[in-house]
């Protein structure tokens, strides 16, 4: 089920809120929320609910026995890592691995590709965080399998994050309160996210599609306009989803971590990754980068650590060569900044911002492709290799038809928009209520007439 659909906005969410808010007992409240979450997942994924339930039972059992058999703690941790990553690897990377083997060694192995279970990357990482943190002694053992199941399946963040670590919500699973103010803030946040998705991301996606930059030769300006539209689309799409997830969490009494902080206002690529998909960055830092030694090792090992983490970050996004390339591209950029760029102390701020945006822009060129051939197509278009001229009728048509949307998107992706939202929520309640009511009406009008438009990050 998609958040930005009439079924979700007008039926599923209100019903869930009514049932959970009306129930005073936290244990019953958790069971209701668990049932709603399973229905939410089963809506588009009936078979793979079984896989998710098996994953819940597996990690719950690992936790129980990690506490019961202290002398086997390390072995149980390793078993948990192997089994969780094994399941993720089988469903997500098996076909990719067979393809690589066939190409590398001229083999003719057959891969029985299974459809990728939706959200598996997100819920596997959440389950792993529980097992690892339990081993480290950072969280308490969860003895109630239903509460643990709720942690894994909680529908606001099940499909596309934020990646909530068990330590973030362990207290709230046992005791949480919903206040009228929290409910109002959550609704406002949800509506801001819905507006980002419906009013901006979907329309920017149509501009990217109309540019044809992926599918064939285009003029240079058309390619740049198309990729600009994609850069804005993916930000509003994913940050919109995160806003909706955080807002729903607040309505249900949970405090989910922030996932975005105006990343297009960053002054460096390092800064960008502190503001974009922050929960994924935190996960890799806590569970991969620091255990590898982080930066407290020799320079060569430090460089290797960074490249490993970014290679894995790319691979996490998808089983395709362009995602690995995209991850390594960022690894190399971060190394360049760390060892070269940051040593230039008097670098102008405007230049830093401009170069960061350009680097991120080219990064999306690698990311939006479905294959290396498409990557070749998009970069060939960007650098005029399609030989269709710099400006053509199509590029002018795109700019004249969608220039205002692109300008509004660019302006609203900057830090002032986040500050304005915060100021509205903190100090201008009357204006906030009026704005939310207007957004709700406009979004509803778009929802009723729009085609099916899933979130981009569902595929990961």
């Amino acid at each position: 089920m998609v958040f930005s659909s009439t079924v979700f906005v007008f039926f599923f969410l209100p019903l869930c809120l009514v049932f959970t808010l009306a129930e005073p007992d936290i244990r019953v409240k958790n069971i209701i929320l668990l049932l709603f979450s399973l229905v939410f997942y089963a809506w588009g994924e009936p078979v793979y609910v079984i896989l998710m339930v098996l994953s819940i039972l597996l990690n719950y059992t690992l936790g129980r026995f990690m506490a019961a058999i202290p002398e086997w703690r390390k072995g149980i941790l390793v078993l948990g890592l192997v089994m969780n990553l094994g399941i993720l690897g089988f469903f997500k990377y098996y076909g990719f691995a067979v393809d690589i083997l066939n190409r590398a060694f001229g083999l003719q192995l057959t891969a029985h590709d299974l459809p990728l279970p939706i959200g598996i990357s997100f819920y596997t990482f959440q389950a792993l965080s529980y097992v690892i943190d339990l081993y480290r002694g950072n969280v308490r053992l969860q003895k109630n399998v239903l509460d643990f199941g709720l942690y894994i399946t909680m529908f606001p963040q099940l499909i596309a994050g934020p990646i909530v670590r068990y330590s973030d919500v362990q207290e709230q699973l046992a005791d949480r309160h919903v206040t009228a103010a929290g409910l109002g803030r959550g609704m406002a946040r949800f509506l801001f996210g819905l507006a980002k998705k419906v009013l901006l991301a979907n329309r920017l996606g149509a501009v990217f599609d109309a540019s044809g930059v992926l599918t064939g030769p285009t003029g240079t300006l058309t390619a740049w306009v198309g990729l600009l539209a994609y850069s804005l689309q993916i930000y509003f799409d994913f940050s919109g989803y995160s806003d909706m997830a955080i807002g729903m969490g607040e309505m249900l009494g949970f405090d989910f971590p922030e996932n975005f902080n105006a990343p297009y206002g960053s002054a460096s690529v390092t800064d960008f990754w502190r503001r974009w998909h922050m929960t994924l960055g935190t996960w890799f830092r806590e569970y991969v980068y620091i255990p590898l030694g982080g930066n407290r090792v020799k320079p060569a090992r430090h460089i290797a650590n960074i490249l490993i983490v970014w290679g894995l970050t790319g691979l996490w996004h998808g089983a395709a060569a362009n995602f690995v390339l995209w991850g390594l591209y960022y690894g190399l950029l971060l190394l360049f900044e760390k060892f070269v760029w940051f040593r230039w102390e008097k670098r102008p701020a405007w230049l830093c911002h401009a170069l960061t945006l350009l680097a991120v822009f080219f990064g999306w060129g690698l990311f939006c492709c479905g294959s290396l051939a498409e990557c070749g197509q998009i970069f060939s278009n960007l650098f005029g290799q399609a030989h269709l001229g710099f400006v053509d009728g199509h590029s002018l048509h795109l700019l004249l038809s969608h220039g205002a949307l692109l300008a509004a998107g660019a302006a609203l992706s900057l830090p002032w928009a986040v500050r304005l939202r915060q100021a509205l929520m903190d100090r201008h309640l009357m204006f906030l209520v009026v704005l939310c009511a207007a957004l709700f009406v406009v979004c509803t009008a778009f929802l009723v007439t729009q085609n099916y438009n899933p979130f981009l990050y569902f595929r990961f």
Partner: protein
Amino acid sequence: MKTPLRVKIAFVACMLLLTACLAVFIGLRLRRPHPQACDFAVLSETLSEAGTLPDSLPGSDASLKRAFGLLPGSAEEFLYFEPATFMDVDEVLVARVSSEAQAADVRAACLARIEAQKNNFESYGTDQFSLMNEALVYENGGYVCYTAGHHAAEAMALIRKAIER
């Protein structure tokens, strides 16, 4: 204090049971009839030769987006025949998908298309409305298929034959 042996045996038994459940689940998923690599050009010819597309025309990316809200990247590959005129409902869509997320997207788009067409023809085109009531959506692992119109059932049978072993 040393952990009692029965606890360790219980752990091993639980892990074996869960691993067996996972293996059975994966085994059952792999045993389902697998879609064979279907050549859409051949399938297109088959559908045309069988006379299942008299009121349809080959669709474009733009018409696919307009009718279903699907972009070329929404699936690995599409075969689409759109209604020949705005008063026709004969339509075929076959999508090769590589993930459950893609399958869910295309399936939802097909269901939305059926509802939209029914709304278009309700109280206006009774024949078209009843044909849309008989529209078919079928999913098999790597493919999601949709047929509507006078030859929906025959077209779907040919598509299923082409994608299933």
